[in-house]
């Protein structure tokens, strides 16, 4: 129980640190969103008009005032307004979040299936060269740039073969290509860790004993090896989340999907600080939560960890 509390407290500190660090960094950037939006020559505003706009937006307040204002706003659930679009940040993220969550979950599940498939093929395939090919697949997939993969998939599957529509597709159809695109780079490290674990575990004496007792490779894999190889794989799930977020930015942009990645990409382009701040905190929150979950789950999956913790 103390372990759980300590971990949760750590998570809260990490969140505050992420908020503060992102606030400071965003303040340190040259220029600001109001300058970018309103001091745009296109609007032809005079210096006085611009000053009035800045005052109206509170952009002339001191950094500390702005920090406290933003922080209390965040704590109270008010994320402010996007300077570029004028839309409340909460609304912007609220509408984008389900799309990204769907994409991320579907992408992750697909990646896990893909990784398991590769691991199974590399271990169980009937021919040696097939096993070798499957085993080298993760390195190959890890080297594929998400952006390039997305473009290739859409060009071939949608524009050439017409299998799925990119424009005017239904909710499921519109997920196919983005999910594939996202799953590949995540499946690669997953499969790699899984294969490495299988190798390590297979070299253990108990495996030899089980084999001597007449267990088949398949039985071994599913009953003993897999269970032992799982914990390290789960442990890197937290790290993969970063990959997932990065992949979502690219995937959503390539496929023109609504989502947090798109919102973030646009916010970076326009230095839309309120949006960026919210995205950073959101990403930090998700990251922290996933890692917290992994930390809390680990002792359950791996009894040895439990022993260490309680000792």
């Amino acid at each position: 129980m103390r372990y759980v509390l300590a971990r949760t407290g750590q998570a809260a500190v990490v969140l505050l640190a992420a908020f503060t660090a992102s606030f400071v960094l965003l303040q340190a950037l040259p220029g600001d969103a109001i300058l970018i939006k309103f001091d745009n020559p296109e609007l032809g505003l005079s210096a006085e008009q611009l000053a009035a706009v800045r005052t109206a937006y509170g952009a002339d307040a001191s950094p500390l005032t702005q920090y406290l204002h933003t922080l209390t706003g965040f704590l109270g659930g008010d994320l402010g307004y996007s300077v570029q679009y004028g839309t409340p940040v909460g609304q912007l993220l609220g509408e984008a979040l389900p799309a990204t969550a769907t994409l991320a979950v579907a992408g992750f599940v697909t990646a896990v299936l893909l990784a398991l498939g590769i691991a199974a093929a590399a271990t169980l395939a009937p021919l040696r060269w097939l096993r070798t090919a499957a085993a080298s697949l993760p390195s190959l997939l890890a080297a594929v740039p998400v952006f390039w993969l997305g473009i290739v998939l859409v060009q071939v599957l949608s524009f050439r073969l017409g299998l799925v529509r990119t424009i005017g597709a239904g909710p499921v159809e519109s997920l196919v290509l983005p999910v594939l695109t996202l799953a590949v780079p995540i499946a690669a490290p997953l499969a790699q860790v899984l294969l490495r674990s299988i190798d390590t575990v297979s070299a253990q004496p108990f495996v030899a004993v089980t084999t001597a007792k007449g267990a088949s490779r398949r039985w071994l894999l599913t009953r003993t090896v897999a269970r032992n190889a799982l914990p390290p794989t789960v442990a890197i799930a937290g790290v993969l989340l970063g990959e997932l977020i990065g992949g979502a930015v690219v995937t959503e942009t390539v496929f023109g999907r609504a989502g947090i990645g798109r919102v973030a990409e646009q916010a970076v382009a326009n230095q839309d600080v309120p949006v960026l701040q919210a995205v950073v905190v959101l990403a930090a929150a998700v990251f922290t939560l996933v890692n917290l979950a992994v930390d809390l789950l680990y002792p359950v999956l791996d009894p040895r960890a439990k022993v260490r913790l309680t000792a």
Partner: protein
Amino acid sequence: MTRTPGHPLPADGSPAATDRQGGRTRAARTPARTPARTTAAVAVLGATALLAGCAGGRDAAASGGQPDGQGGNLTYLEYQPHTTLYPPQSGFYPNGALVNNVTDRLTYQDPETLEIEPWIATDWQVNADATEYTFNLRDGVTFSDGTPLDAAAVARNFDTFGLGDDERGLTVSEAVNNYAGSEVVDEDTVTFRFSAPAPGFLQATSTITSGLLSPETLDRPLEDLGAGSATEIVGSGPFVITDEQVGTEITLTAREDYDWAPPSSEHQGRAHLDTVTIVVTPEDSVRLGSLLSGQADVVRYVQAPDEEQVTQAGFQLFAPQTRGVNNGLALRFTNPLLADLRVRQALVHGVDNRQVVETVFTDNYPAATSVLSAAAPGYHDTSEALAHDPDRAAALLTEAGWTPGPDGIRVKDGQRLSLDVYASAAQPLSKPTLELVGQQLAEIGVELNVKSPDAGSYATDTLDPLKTPLYHSMVGRADLDVIKSQFHTDNRDVLLSDDATLDGLLEAVAAEPDPQARLQRSADVQDYLAEQAYYIPLFEEPQVYGAAPDVTGLAFEAVGRPTFYDVATGR
């Protein structure tokens, strides 16, 4: 990230039409001149435009439409999401495409002839010094929420556009200057008064930055006119925004009872199309692939290298010109390295804009022969002063005391002739363009560092002549005032100038009431800019669209924003 010139402008110009013009004043303080072409100095512009206007057709770019009800649906792919539907801030193309189709304007400017014609206003009178305009309005026009578009509504619109509201973030329109106030004379008559002559106002009433919104919409703060609020924006145009997926998709639906197209339009009544689905598709290859594979009907922003793919597939390519100050490089002479006229002349002669166009662009991007586009009113050929002549450029630099250093880059008093320029997200293929220019300049011993900044650095650094000695930009707008807009110290001031002579010449363009004399004033400015080597014009910039072979009636307002009213797809 955007490549589109997002200018706000009011619009329009006409190709090669040198003698006409609806002018508008943009400078505060500078009185402006008057537009209409025939009737000279006396400012009876309204009448002239009215008479002249009745002949013009409406389609700018494509063939006529189809009978109502056969229009079908159009899928239009946009490069970026819109940011606001407040008309004075709608110059950014994604905003403009929406405002152009969901609002009507007081007057209509023929995109080809540039004449100002009646639209919501049936006729108008202007006093002798252009400080008072009275418009008579058409009866029976309503906003899509049913409220009447009457004199009070029109007054409310221009009070907002002319005076702004800082508290609500509603900025003053660049097109409406010297605005003093409105008076509702009766239900269908409204008078506007100006604190100084505003001969450009009539043309300003025709541009998308003066799109008419319902009074209730104008009560909103800027935040409520942005993304996420599109379906609540009420105009009187042929289309109504009926659905918005924030940042990704907008649906326009034809208004069944629409019956007030400009009188000069052959097509009256409702739009042919039933719906227009605007899908934001940021990735160029996906936009193009969607068009060519039949998943989309029209796409905006076809990259120059992709044009051939569109035409070869038998698809339509449209490249309406943006008609104004050409895409080019402003030489900021307040930077000490560029203070010497000979150095600036050397840069001008060192750049081969034909090679730029041939290498990076296509025939739709004609090489510039002046600061102004050849399609812009007031164009005056200064190609001689701009000629590519590397030998002369090298000689000029030597004469100015810059001698080649060990690495070929010229040096003077221990300083390298090295200049920074920022790739501009708003200009098409800015980076490759600047890199090619850099290679050309390297041949005469000048180093050009092409930088790709983030938006914040760009916004701050480009205001500093020391950090940004060369500035890449353009302005699309066909009015003679466009040149003042780009170069005057009170306007965009791309040169970050301190040259009072230039300001004086620019003000003369804006203040000259006689149309012929005004053309001469414009030529004076172009000659002066060329003599002083203040600007390296590169090319005349179009907006490039691709459309499926069976899309008919696609038209563009004067600076290239799409008009869907006449479009039909049959799907």
